[in-house]
């Protein structure tokens, strides 16, 4: 792969994601104040000691934003990785085994997808206890339905190729066929899909937190920060917009990279890629 061939838009995305990830990793070093530390009056305007002002309890907004990056990115990433693992394993199993297994998995997946994700999440979270791992699991399971669908379609596209048939005729086992014949040919579209799912997870987590069903206070996360500060809006206090903008920026950055990956995938159709 040629570094020079990466377009500017993708660079913007990569840099944006890198900044967010650095903030997440080194939050205690970067943040001027603590995550839950009350440092001043409520809703102080930006400037002075507090670069972005303070929030509804008088905590430093910038510090909470930096710590929030940690929670938001960790939960979204964990949910995406889990949903990918789940979706890919099930979808490849369905595509390779075919027949009854495929029917069973696919019909159940159709059923899961017949309920809108947010509604499904609301119903389930109404019953389940509010733990972080429950939240991650629910997000992952709901999202894995999309991964399953894409994964199965991609795997089936490849699985009907004659080189897979040739491997089968040779007597190769399912593991070889999946990992050596199918997977290398599906990496590009799946990488793009991973990005797409990650962007979605960020938005979805923020939405749940905003509705009060995601990450519970006092831990900082971007969606929850919007919820905390939303009452300031009518008084012209823009504290709620700052974390909102952070969510939007990160999602845009991820989508910029995804867009580039997708274009790259389609322009390489039939080619051998960057191997």
């Amino acid at each position, binding site marked *: 792969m040629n570094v020079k061939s990466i377009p500017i838009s993708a660079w913007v995305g990569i840099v944006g994601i890198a900044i967010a990830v650095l903030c997440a990793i080194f939050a205690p070093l970067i943040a001027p104040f603590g995550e839950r530390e009350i440092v001043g009056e409520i809703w102080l305007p930006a400037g002075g000691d507090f670069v972005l002002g303070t929030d509804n309890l008088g905590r430093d907004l910038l510090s909470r934003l930096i710590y929030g990056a940690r929670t938001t990115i960790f939960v979204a990433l964990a949910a995406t990785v889990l949903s990918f693992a789940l979706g890919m394993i099930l979808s490849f199993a369905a595509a390779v085994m075919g027949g009854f297994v495929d029917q069973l998995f696919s019909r159940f997946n159709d059923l899961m997808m017949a309920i809108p994700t947010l509604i499904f999440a609301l119903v389930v979270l109404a019953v389940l206890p509010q733990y972080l791992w429950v939240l991650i699991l629910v997000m992952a399971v709901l999202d894995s339905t999309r991964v399953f669908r894409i994964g199965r379609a991609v795997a089936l596209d490849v699985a009907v*190729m*004659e080189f897979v048939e*040739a491997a089968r005729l*040779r*007597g190769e086992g399912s593991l070889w066929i999946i990992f050596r*014949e199918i997977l290398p040919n599906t990496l590009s579209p799946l990488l793009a899909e991973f990005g797409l799912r990650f962007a979605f997870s960020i938005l979805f987590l923020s939405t749940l937190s905003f509705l009060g069903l995601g990450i519970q206070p006092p831990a900082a996360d971007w969606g929850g920060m919007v919820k905390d500060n939303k009452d300031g809006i009518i008084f012209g206090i823009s504290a709620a917009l700052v974390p909102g903008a952070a969510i939007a920026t990160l999602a845009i950055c991820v989508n910029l990279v995804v867009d580039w990956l997708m274009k*790259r995938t389609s322009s390489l159709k039939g080619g051998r890629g960057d191997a």
Partner: protein
Amino acid sequence: MPDLLSVKNLKIEATSYPPGEPPKVVTLVEGVSFDLEKGKVLGLIGESGAGKSTIGLSALAYGRGGVRITGGEVLLNGRDILNLDRAGINEVRGRHVCYVAQSAAAAFNPAHKLGDQVIEASLRHGLMSREEARKRALYLFRVLGLPNPESFGERYPHQVSGGQLQRAMTAMALCPNPELIVFDEPTTALDVTTQIDVLAAIKHAIEETHTAALYITHDLAVVAQISDNIMVLRHGKTVEYGTTKQVIEAPREDYTRALVNVRQAKREEAGDQSGALLKIEHVHAGYGNGFKVLHDVSMHLPQGQTLAIVGESGSGKSTLARVITGLLPPSEGRIMFDGKELPKALKGRAQEELRRIQMIYQMADTAMNPRQTVRDIIGRPLSFYFGMSGAKKTERVKELLDQIEMGSRFLDRYPAELSGGQKQRVAIARALAAKPELILCDEPTSALDPLVAEGILNLLMKLQEETAVSYVFITHDIAIVRAIADSVAVMHRGRLVRFGAKSKVLSPPFDDYTDLLLKSVPEMEIGWLERVLKTRRMESAGN
């Protein structure tokens, strides 16, 4: 009087965008000149990439997807159509020059009736009233031999067969009474038996209407039947340009000579055909939805020989290959291999049984993993069946590459870096690596250009002499059967029509279907089409 069409020193370019590199300008056609008189037919012939379609479309001042005509002149009745404005070009297209595409199925709009599409150009150019256009369409449907010409125009594209669509497309081109029609491989996508009917219909129609034509094809034998002059193209340049008689009977260039002489080879069949390495006994097979494809098929193949299974699409010949490999277990009957019955399904077969039967596919492109190098592709059967590794494996891969006449410099290439013929050779090497006793060849040459295909056939025959491997060779092409087979099985609609030694199957008395099939493969001989049409007994199934 000036010629109808006069192309002078044509140059056509396109821009390609290789990933990760700056865009490149590629010259597709250079220095091509020819003239076409009123009512005459010029055949443009060449292998894929020769630029023949691009030249054909230049007669309509059209470049497909980023292709640009950058030099030379295209004079229609003495007027250069490359310098016309939009309105002028629209005036030429559909009125003076019409186009018949290779795939009529895609070229017709699925949302409108065939009749409306056929007369559209005539109406939009104000050439005739709707009533007159209808009458002309009816007349053309009759001339082209379409069934129920009165109601044919009322049907939608998906309601008629491929052969009929191709004729309807010809009617659409002829309807506005153009002076020139560009035929772009109009019969290539059709079945062999259908191809001849459509070819005859096209020839009849352009003779009847005195229309001039550019006839583009890769098959010299086809163009010999229809054109007055022939231009042979290669890599966008003219190789030879002359009358049909001169090009076919006294070619001047080596390349043309090779094209003319392709598949002249005939192999003597083996004398003793009594033994049986492979024996197919009363096989019935079908797919899950109750659709039965094979009915009571039996045949056998002695060791070291070649059995050709011949038939058109839908005859069940590829299904038979799937039954032999175990991908599709037969519902009745059995497959005997080396005296023992093979387990019906792939899953039940032992590794050793799988090793002894290998397969070569039609599309080498999809038959090889694009993410593996030639070394991996050929090496895998070696490690899988024989547990080879390291230097020993590499040594054997090199040997195999030498055997397929490619050499070890290809070791670390990816399939995308190989030509079509090279890919098929690698596929052969992969099959050979398993040291099989039987190789199933499913139309391994039909996607290749004639000269490349001939090279593959010669290689297969050489390998048979060296290793005594047996072939089941599936094809629709009688010429290939003549060239390589010892015994022949003719299949039609899932049934075995005829089976036996080549000399017996290919000599009279024929059953009707074999007769049709034999008379459907154009021969490199002027006047062959007329002769064959007179003596045919059966109409092709698909029309």
